[in-house]
């Protein structure tokens, strides 16, 4: 059957047969880098288009509909405009930090793509601490945001950056704890193991209450971590104009923008992997007929389908809810989400020890 795993294996074999191992490895690096950058760009284009269409659909509008059929090339036109736009640097800005910040944020967003499993056997790096790697690396992006806010020499940016710092540092805790609930049940940090453990049912189905709670907390926490409404305090448009990227223009602004969307993709992919079985098709117990039909759908479709479903949910949040205030945001985390996820982790541990899950 057609699968990304076969293609990857064939390319790998051909490279190692044709060239000596060092050269072959180098070629593989180049191919992976090109693919990662390609995916990055494609995600930016698709997610921005999707956001605009989803928001238009919710707001009684049409959304982009001029450039290309149904406006699908609108994002490309916008990107082109941003590329040719002058990149302004404000007076009194810390030039070095100001220029590094967007690249740092973008690099972080790209690096966390590495351990994700896009399809059956199709993964850049099956590191044994995959989930830990993602949570650890993704928290570096807050440094980029703080750098941008500080270096801009703008009070709005500074306020936005400080908010962002407080927000991401606190919400990482409950995001991490809700991830741990699944890790405890799986017993592995490796993403391929976590997906393999869901072969006979996704964790959301067989994990009982703790996994449901963990799933809800995870969605709330990652929405906050990616600075999306209703937790978009870092760029709260009606309060801080544009928050930490007020002073950025042109391509540097676009990098922040792209990184935001790729971060959304990464956290939704992680959510899909942990709770919804990654590339695993939907199986219903012993109903072999149904299971067979589900198996015909390629694994890459399953993975991206689940991820985009979660992305849609997060977009739905954004276009529905008002924004929280900064103190309410921190109350929500420290008074409710964190204690609940701690108790939830104990529950999950109990279930794992007693083997109560399916």
């Amino acid at each position, binding site marked *: 059957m057609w699968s990304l795993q076969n293609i990857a294996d064939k390319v790998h074999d051909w490279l190692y047969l044709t060239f000596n191992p060092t050269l072959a490895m180098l070629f593989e690096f180049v191919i992976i880098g090109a693919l990662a950058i390609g995916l990055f760009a494609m995600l930016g284009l698709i997610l921005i288009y999707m956001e605009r269409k989803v928001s238009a659909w919710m*707001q009684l509008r049409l959304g982009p509909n001029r450039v290309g059929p149904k406006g699908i090339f609108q994002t490309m036109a916008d990107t082109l405009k941003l590329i040719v736009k002058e990149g302004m640097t404000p007076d009194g800005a810390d030039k070095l930090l100001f220029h590094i910040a967007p690249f740092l944020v973008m690099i972080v967003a790209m690096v966390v793509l590495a351990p994700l499993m896009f399809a059956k056997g199709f993964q850049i790096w099956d590191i044994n601490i995959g989930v830990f790697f993602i949570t650890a690396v993704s928290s570096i992006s807050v440094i980029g945001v703080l750098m941008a806010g500080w270096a801009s020499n703008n*009070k709005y940016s500074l306020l936005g950056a400080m908010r962002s710092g407080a927000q991401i540092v606190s919400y990482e805790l409950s995001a991490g704890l809700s991830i741990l609930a699944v890790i405890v049940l799986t017993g592995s940090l490796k993403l391929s193991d976590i997906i393999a453990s869901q072969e006979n049912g996704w964790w959301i189905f067989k994990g009982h209450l703790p996994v449901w709670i963990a799933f809800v907390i995870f969605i709330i926490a990652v929405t906050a971590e990616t600075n999306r409404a*209703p937790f978009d305090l870092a760029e709260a448009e009606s309060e801080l104009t544009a928050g930490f990227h007020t002073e950025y223009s042109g391509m540097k602004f676009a990098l922040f923008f792209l990184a935001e969307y790729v971060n959304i993709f990464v956290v939704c992919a992680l959510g899909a992997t942990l709770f919804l079985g990654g590339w695993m098709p939907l199986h219903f117990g012993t109903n072999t007929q149904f299971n067979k039909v589900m198996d015909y759908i390629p694994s890459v479709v399953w993975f991206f389908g689940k991820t985009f479903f979660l992305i849609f949910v997060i977009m739905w949040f954004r276009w529905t809810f*008002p924004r929280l205030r900064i103190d309410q945001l921190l109350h929500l985390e420290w008074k409710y989400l964190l204690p609940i996820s701690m108790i939830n982790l104990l529950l999950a541990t109990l279930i794992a020890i007693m083997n109560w899950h399916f």
Partner: protein
Amino acid sequence: MTEEVVITDQDDLIINVGPQHPSTHGVLHLVITLNGETVKKVEPHLGYIHRSIEKMCESLTYRQFIYTTSRMDYLSSHINNHCCAMCVEKGLQVEVPPRAQVIRVLMDELTRLASHQLWWGALAMDVGALTPFFLAFREREMINDIMEETCGTRLTMNYMVPGGVMADIHPNFQRRVHEFLAHFKRKIDEYDELITDNIIFQNRTKGIGFISKEDAISYGMSGPSARGSGVQCDIRKLYPYEVYDKLQFKEIIESGGDCFARYMVRMKEMKQSMSIVEQLIDNIPEGDFQAKTKNVLKLPKGEFYSRVETARGELGVYIISEGGTTPYRIKFRSPGYSNLSALDHMTRGQKIGDMVAIMGTLDLVIPDIDR
């Protein structure tokens, strides 16, 4: 009023909000002193859209000056025009025909509805929800279409003239108003589901921007903003004009004094305006739509004052006449100016996000403040 004097020390962060800022809804400039996220002081700076309308009116005739007032509070232009026309009629001692009176009240209430709809969308946008703005515009568009048919314009109406209204209502007017009422009655429940009952919105507005009844009176607040603090100040009830004394409606008063109370006053006023329109729309008396007036209006020597309830509060028009064709001096008492003056009092000790919500519930229209 005694207020603690704020001494700005070096740790304070002073930020210029505006003149171009998404949440000031116009060219309002606020200098805010911050201690971290907490607002210590708000200092409004005015004058960015000052067009000296009062001075301009001194060289315009009594028919002409009404048109400039559409540009003051552009969201309730009918009501502004209405107030000026009433003031001139007082001087001329003209009796407005019953048909014109009813049409005027209908237009006033439709304008109030349109203005409150826009306010609802803008407030939701201030607290971070973008979608309601588009929903509000869907309904506002219907009112604008009704206005366009009858008055010829959609924003600056210039429909009220001394002695009545400029033209008779369009034949479609009643049918389309009925359509609008049927539509909006369903949609206002949607508004409640989406924003009023939303827990985040309630957290953002309950207990925020409190102003007591006494303070509201001493700041000269009026309109829905003051009625949210329990002040009785509805001019339609206190000093009824046109046919308001024959209508069945209650003054809406909330005692909370916070943003949510002001919000609820306006939400209930929308329902109230609908009921007023419903009472009148099928009972428009036949007759003239304009009283006979001379071509050149001359007010007798003296001082004339009229007041109406706009969507934002009490609008007063004060004309001093020397007996000529143009006023000697005109003074407008605009509701936004006094409401804005209470902003500092309400905002102290609150967060930046609250300041935006408070400004949203005050429903400021900057050209009304600056004139």
